[in-house]
């Protein structure tokens, strides 16, 4: 990779050979970035349990990529609602505990309202079909700044992948609404990563995650006690 990088710097043109500089290195050699924060966040995202004793989330919809339909939209929106419940609950608790300061405090005070708005929006879209809020437990992730940061990154990354993964399974009107939410989640991810000294946008695309991948990511957090 270092060879590709060296060559890439020789030419800033648009040739296809530019691609190999693409993306990989974005920020990889920023020695000024906080490697500790980066390592910590990565470790958590990669699979450490954030809270011990969570239950496995059941009831994730089986989302085969069948033709979009109103019925399938409902399943997907309920899937999104669970994720938004977790985010909203996480930020609300962190805000209420009041242990965060500075940039993190500013972040949580603004982002919590967005997630509450997303929950309210999805609930109203689903009406009586809306799932119930699960029992949640966040442990020290809502009071310890480093744990909070790692958990926020994990949650935001998961939900971006979740929305992107379902985009093509939604009917067009519902997709148009979901697109207004996912970029806000992406902004949150960029914001909290910037605060943490991590590259806010390490890749050229945010890869879609399947419902199964999202479920695993949620289970790894241990945040959900009953669904």
């Amino acid at each position, binding site marked *: 990779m270092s060879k590709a990088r060296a060559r890439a710097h020789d030419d*800033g*043109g*648009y040739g*296809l*050979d*530019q*691609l*190999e*500089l*693409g*993306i*990989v*290195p*974005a*920020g990889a050699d*920023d020695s000024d970035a906080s490697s500790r924060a980066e390592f910590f966040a990565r470790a958590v995202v990669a699979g450490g349990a954030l809270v011990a004793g969570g239950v496995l989330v059941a009831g994730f919809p089986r989302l085969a*990529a069948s033709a979009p339909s109103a019925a399938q939209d409902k399943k997907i929106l309920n899937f999104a609602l669970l994720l938004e419940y977790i985010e909203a609950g996480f930020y609300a608790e962190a805000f209420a505990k009041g242990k965060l300061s500075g940039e993190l405090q500013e972040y949580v005070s*603004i*982002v919590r*309202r*967005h997630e509450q*708005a997303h929950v309210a*929006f999805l609930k109203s879209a689903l009406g009586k079909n809306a799932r119930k809020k699960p029992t949640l437990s966040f442990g020290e992730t809502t009071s310890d700044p480093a744990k909070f940061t790692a958990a926020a990154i994990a949650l935001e990354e998961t939900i*971006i992948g979740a929305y*992107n*993964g379902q*985009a*093509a*399974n939604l009917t*067009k*009107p519902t*997709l*148009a609404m979901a*697109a*207004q*939410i*996912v*970029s*806000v*989640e*992406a*902004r*949150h*991810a*960029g*914001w909290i*990563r*910037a*605060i943490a000294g991590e*590259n*806010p*946008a*390490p*890749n*050229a*695309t*945010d*890869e*879609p995650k*399947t419902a199964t991948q999202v479920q695993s990511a949620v289970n790894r957090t241990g945040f959900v006690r009953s669904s």
Partner: protein
Amino acid sequence: MSAKKHETHTMSELTLGKLDRDGAIREAVARVSGDTRARFLGKAAVGGAALLEALTAPALAGATASSDVAILNYALTLEYLQAAFYTEAERLGAIRGELKPIPRQLGAVERAHVAAIRAALGQAAVKRPAFDFRGVTEDDTKFLKTAVAFEDLAAAAYKAQAARIKSAALLAAAISIHSVEARHAAWMRFLAGVTPAASAFDQGKPISEVKAIVASTHFVVAHPKMASRKNPTYKG
């Protein structure tokens, strides 16, 4: 797209792993498209680029809707603009301080978007226009303000097109570029000291509005400028 008879490729699922696990697409691409697209695919094995490969699949099927071609070309013009902006800033080397790595980091991503969309469009791709950035690529404050504006605009532009895209594979690729543009917007806003996420819902911008905004910048020019307005700086 090309008038050549392409092999058809049916996409049953959007998961990328399925797209080219065995390299079959890659080989087919090399056969029908010659060196260019094959080189792109061969070198795309970098972070986040797997999805960009999805952009090439519809071309293989030879059945891309004309409206999807138009949307891709529209996206390409915006990516050309962003890529040229960051690339010029990187070349000039005048951006300093905490902004110093930004032209290289974002330029790399926007150039990857350009390359992927061009590869998807093949012969149908619009040409890269000439740009004159009027000094904003060599002044920290102007550079950052322009970056914020470009990234917010790109996110809004992709968003408004998402529901208009017919091909599921193109949609998956476009929506996954869309959220990266939103990350960039938040990042640039963070550096500029403005709220990275200003509201709970991001609004899209229709093509007419986006084009009017781009036109108002006068960054896109009919002909390349013939002489640099600035003297070259000695950089040792």
